């Protein structure tokens, strides 16, 4: 036999994880505990504020204005105190300082800001009633997407345990970033909703890959799992790298929307690594060794 060619002999840079050392219970405990904590955070948030996540002005109604000025942040805070605003400085390379002013009010915000002599770079206003509708539509959208995904997965695998494993992983992939958003003080915006929906797509492919390798192919369990992992972890790490760099760049360059999408995806994809290779894998192992024979 000749030596394997350079291309087929891919370098293995992944550490060998010895799954045999851990029981299914041990493996599943960690992601389930994290999911429980995340759900607890959302529940606590709901009890305290009335919504499970803090809503941005696209959902509550309000105004977001980006202004250009030479005044300092505290000066702006003082001059606009009537609006009860949140003020965030934005890094802009060209020398003029810009701030994002956010307030829950919509009436007379433009006049109040213009009367202080601030130059308005962008202005975005959402009325409260429009925001309430958006919340409802978002919930409907997320709901349909999630149920549709679940049905498709059941249709593809046609057995309960492997399918439900994917559905739980995907659920957790969405819930964990939501809880982290509360912890980090990020508010739910249309951008983050887009990211959450994107997560459904992203998180399912590594799970499908794992299930596919283990259930639909010949070969021993650990061998199949390892192969799937090599591919799946590369995929997820690539996406995490892309999103981390993208959101950092977009944040530094003061582009709206992109940093939020990127950050939520990074959190969700990291959660996905844990959920796929601990929760989903342990469920599959149980199914393969114990569930099937029942």
């Amino acid at each position, binding site marked *: 036999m000749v030596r394997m060619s350079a291309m087929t002999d891919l370098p293995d840079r992944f550490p060998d994880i010895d799954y045999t050392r851990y029981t299914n219970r041990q493996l599943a405990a960690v992601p389930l505990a994290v999911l429980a904590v995340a759900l607890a955070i959302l529940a606590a948030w709901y009890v305290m504020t009335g919504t499970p996540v803090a809503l941005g002005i696209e959902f509550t109604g309000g105004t977001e204005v980006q202004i250009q000025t030479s005044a300092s942040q505290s000066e702006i805070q003082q001059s606009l105190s009537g609006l009860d605003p949140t003020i965030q400085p934005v890094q802009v390379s060209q020398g003029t300082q810009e701030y994002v002013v956010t307030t829950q009010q919509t009436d007379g915000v433009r006049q109040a800001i213009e009367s202080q002599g601030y130059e308005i770079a962008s*202005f975005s206003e959402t009325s409260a009633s429009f925001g309430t509708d958006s919340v409802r*539509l978002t919930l409907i959208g997320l709901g349909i997407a999630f149920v549709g*995904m679940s049905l498709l997965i059941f249709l593809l695998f046609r057995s309960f345990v492997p399918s439900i494993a994917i559905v739980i992983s995907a659920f957790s992939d969405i819930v964990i970033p939501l809880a982290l958003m509360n912890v980090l003080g990020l508010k739910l915006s249309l951008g983050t909703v887009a990211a959450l*929906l994107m997560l459904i797509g992203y998180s399912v492919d590594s799970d499908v890959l794992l299930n596919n390798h283990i259930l639909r192919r010949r070969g021993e369990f650990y061998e199949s799992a390892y192969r799937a992992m090599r591919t799946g972890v590369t995929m997820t790490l690539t996406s995490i790298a*892309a999103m981390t760099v993208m959101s950092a760049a977009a944040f530094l360059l003061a*582009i709206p929307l*992109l940093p939020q999408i990127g950050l939520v995806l990074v959190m969700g994809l990291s959660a996905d690594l844990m959920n796929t290779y601990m929760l989903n894998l342990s469920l599959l192992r149980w199914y393969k060794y114990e569930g099937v024979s029942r």
Partner: protein
Amino acid sequence: MNLRENWRIVLLVIFTIASAGILFGPFVAAQAGGGDAGPVSLDYGLQLSGGTQIRAPLVGMTADDVEFTQDTNFPEKRRAIAEDLGLEPSEVRLSAGGRQAQSQAQAQSGNTIEVFSKNVTRAEFATTLQNNGFDVSQDQIRNGVTAQTRETVVNVLSDKINEGGISGGNVKTAAAGNEYFVVVEVPNAGEQEVKDLISGTGRVQIVARYPVRENGTTTYRETPLLNNSDFTDIGAAQQADPQSGINQPHVPVSIRQDGSAERYSQSLQDFGFTREGIGSCPPNADRNPDNASGYCLYTVQNGRVVYAASMGQQLAQSMNGGDFANSPSFVMTTTNISEAQQLAVNLRAGSIPTELNFTAGTTYTLLPSVAERFKLFSLIAGLVAYLAVSGVVFLRYGSPRVAVPMLATAAAEVFLLLGFASVIGLALDLSHIAGFIAVIGTGVDDLIIIADEILQEGKVATGKVFQSRFKKAFWVIGAAAATTILAMSPLTVLSLGDLTGFAIVTIVGVLLGVLVTRPAYGDILRNLMLSEEERERYTEQ
């Protein structure tokens, strides 16, 4: 290289060339033919070009499924309902369902009565309808207006924006649940400019105010004589022109000759304008139109008096002599040029039955200079994301022979998507850029699956082995693609602003990827493997 065996690569090349043609063709043609075109043929939305978007519902309520009989007199009922509610007749609209609907045995389903006012409650509306002989309960009344009314509003507002001299503006409706919104987008315009153009109903009236002697006392009476639909041949707004005797900004207009002109002329003669009323409107009557004395002709726009005019000597003579009715042209004067412009736009585009409720919608404005910055910077953000992907892929595969085609394929995917955006005239926004980045992400994921599957140990020399591995890889890719498309599809129909664009780009990107680019990458890999195996065989000998 066998073209038939590599048809997937051929397809990708054809698509890439087509995209390049679509994106850069107009620019190259313009350079050669001396025309004008941007270097890349792409449209940009407000977030990347600057401008204003206003999204607002229409003011009004609708009573559905109202029973009309053969003898229901629409104009009479309209006046009666308006009067009971303290509104103008133009703020009430009765419409019978189309005949088509009736033939389909839905006889009563299409009849509606609308009222266009913020100040009427649902209960008041129901009571008024009942008092006027319509059997309507409160549950039959909903907020919002009919599709027909919305269509009229969209058409008229589109005309207004185009008449207003702004290019590239667009008006459409968007649904959010049961509620409908009118969305107005105008590039390169500020919020105030757009609001001035579209606020109000655009209703223009000529109202005569004149004294009447009754029982020895003088009272003043106001009679509306003309509205938008009575005017024709509307000229452009013009500055004051003292040489031809017009000392105010004005709009030259004619009155329609199908009876309107005669009626107008006759009414003014009856009221006394053409005799004692000549030149009798006091200066600045428009500042205090409700208390002016004398004979005044008010130009009313959106319910506000914008100018008060006196009857001129010449015009009076032409009315008395009967010449006016034959050539009924005159000028409508205003106090300033911007009002004259607004007047011309309103006269040309016509009025809308109801106005936009700005307080229940969203407004978005962005300075063009800031948008320009977003355009450049989001390109940079996309590029660094791509570089990050490249880094990880090189780290993982080491071999440039696997990594380079992978990254090239991913880039081709975005390139095809840009071509698609150009073909359908999609106005690119930040949400689309996010979609592109998402597509690179899923694209590279899939390419990694293909690479790992095909590059397993063992040779692919036989077509069979390759086919089987390719199929296995595609099962996973197809399943993942189907989930992504499914997850994104609700967003394409729900009206959630930016998210629609994001969802469309992601879905089209995934489809292009699964059908064109990702299969081609499989073929590319096979060719690389085959050539390597051949070389090995050669060295063995």
